[in-house]
């Protein structure tokens, strides 16, 4: 039974302060986050060209979603997003984990090495994408001239101008950009692991590789899951590097969902349709984070 209690003078003062402190944030969050989320959901079921003003708004039910299924741009985007995530996440997390393991124990110059690997992450994607674009320039760019002259590759990849290699180039660049971030998260968690377990493993004569697979990975499982989830969610939001380097091309070979949203909303002014693509993006992220959460509940202790 809940009894309506009378608040004391002090509690009342605290409550008033609570609302006052929260108010600016609450107003802003409502206007800029909560209402937009609801608006986005509703817009997905409409057709609207903002050039015609609010009068041009028309409710069309499920039509946008029916069109999405046959839309080559969105279908390619979804496919590219999946290929990207399924390669980017395992690559990034495994490199980060190996790097963190070495930095935790087995190398000298920890701090400069950690700093060097983290540097790409704080750099703007626009700037580093510009650099990579020139590095991977197919005709006599530095990477390809090393490939031909040092490794004698007769026909080096055409990278961002080839529909076969462009997405691979984007994946490489993104892994390079983000590894340092996941490395420092894993490293921070690794440094918090109990040292006794490692000591007793060393006494028992376990090799570093055994220690890594039998001790480090199981003990790190929850922070690994955290990183995998974070990396997966972020990987579906990829936009900057794609828009700078290839603008989704050649053809639709590197287009991604956020870019499709951007294209439909701000190039073709189909706001309703773009909102429907945004809903698809949200659903994809939601499904993957739910799966990962369920997997974590099963696999970690």
């Amino acid at each position, binding site marked *: 039974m809940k009894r309506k209690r009378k608040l004391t003078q002090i509690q009342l003062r*605290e*409550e008033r*302060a*609570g*609302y006052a*402190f*929260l108010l*600016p*944030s609450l107003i*802003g*969050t409502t206007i*800029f*986050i*909560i*209402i*937009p*989320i609801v*608006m*986005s959901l509703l*817009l997905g079921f409409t057709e609207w060209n*903002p050039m015609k003003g609010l009068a041009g708004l028309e409710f069309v039910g499920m039509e946008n979603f029916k069109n999405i299924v046959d839309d080559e741009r969105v279908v390619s985007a979804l496919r590219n997003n999946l290929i990207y995530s399924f390669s980017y996440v395992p690559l990034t997390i495994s490199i980060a984990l190996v790097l963190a393991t*070495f*930095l935790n124990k*087995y*190398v*000298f*110059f920890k701090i400069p090495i950690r*700093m060097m*690997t983290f*540097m*790409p992450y*704080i*750099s*703007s*994607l*626009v*700037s*580093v994408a*510009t*650099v*990579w674009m*020139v590095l991977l320039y197919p*005709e006599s760019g*530095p990477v390809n*001239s090393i490939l031909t*002259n040092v490794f004698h590759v007769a026909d080096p990849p055409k990278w961002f101008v080839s529909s076969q290699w462009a997405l691979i180039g984007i994946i490489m660049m993104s892994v390079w950009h983000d590894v*340092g971030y996941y490395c420092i*998260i894993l490293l*921070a968690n690794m440094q918090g692991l109990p040292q006794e377990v490692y000591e007793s493993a060393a006494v028992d004569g376990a090799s570093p590789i055994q220690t890594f697979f039998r001790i480090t990975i199981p003990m790190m499982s929850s922070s690994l899951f955290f990183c995998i989830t974070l990396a997966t969610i972020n990987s*579906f*939001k990829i936009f900057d590097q794609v*828009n*700078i380097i290839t603008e989704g091309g050649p053809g639709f070979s590197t287009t991604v969902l956020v870019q499709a949203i*951007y294209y439909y*909303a701000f190039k073709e002014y189909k706001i309703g349709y773009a*909102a429907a693509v*945004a809903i698809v*993006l949200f659903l994809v*992220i*939601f499904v993957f984070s739910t799966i990962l959460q369920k997997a974590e509940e099963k696999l970690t202790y």
Partner: protein
Amino acid sequence: MKEKLNGNYKAKRLAGRIIATVIIGGLALMFVFPFLWMLSTSFKYEIDVMEFPVRLIPKNWNFKNYATVFLKSDFPGYYLNSIKVTFFAVAGELCITTMAAYAFGRLNFRGKKFLFTLYLSTMMVPGQVLLLPKYIYFSQLHITNTHLALILPSLFSVFGVLLMRQVFMQIPFEYTEAAYIDGASHLRIFWNLILPLAKPGLMTTLLLGFTWSWNDYINPLVFLSNEELFTLTVGLQRFQEDASTNYALIMAGATVSLIPLIILFLFTQKYFIESFASAGVKG
């Protein structure tokens, strides 16, 4: 006998460590190679850019690229715009998020649980989904093509609120109880007791907010069409389109756009790395 074994073991360990350092150090060099190449190319003549073997120290030094970037392009303006937007976005975000975090972390009021759950649940939605409604708002309010369109939404970072709430909750309540009973107002407690104790947390929010705001690309891309308002990210894109195949010049532009954050990072790397790591660990 035992000593010799021990010595052997130690020598082996040392050798292992040296080998590991060489391998991992080589890998780390690959992480900085693009930066070094960018920097050296920015000092080259266009004709030397695609030379082989790849030289990291230019054969002939060329300083004209930087003269072009600073004197003949709009980069100085992009700089000022980025500084302005980042300053107001971060300062405002710090005020608003710490206040909300104080309410959520240290005060009791009716509806707190509901509101907090509401905040948490918005974290599920990717930021790009909000782009279209924001665009509609801002065009109705006629503030597209102003810096306000970039600053305003970034003041209300839910992530910042959650982060600072964690920080505030770790400060023992005994610290503030005495002041409270003596009748100090919550504003005083917040300003004089809580904030000074939360300095490392504030640093985290500041650095994350700064990096995010400085590097933001999609918002200026969508909301700004007037070139005079461009920030560094969209500015660099425009610069690169204009320079077309003048790669040495493009690399000078890229270097200029990266330098402030990289210098800040080199001098405060410990705080940077701790900030990003702690946000991840707590997240």
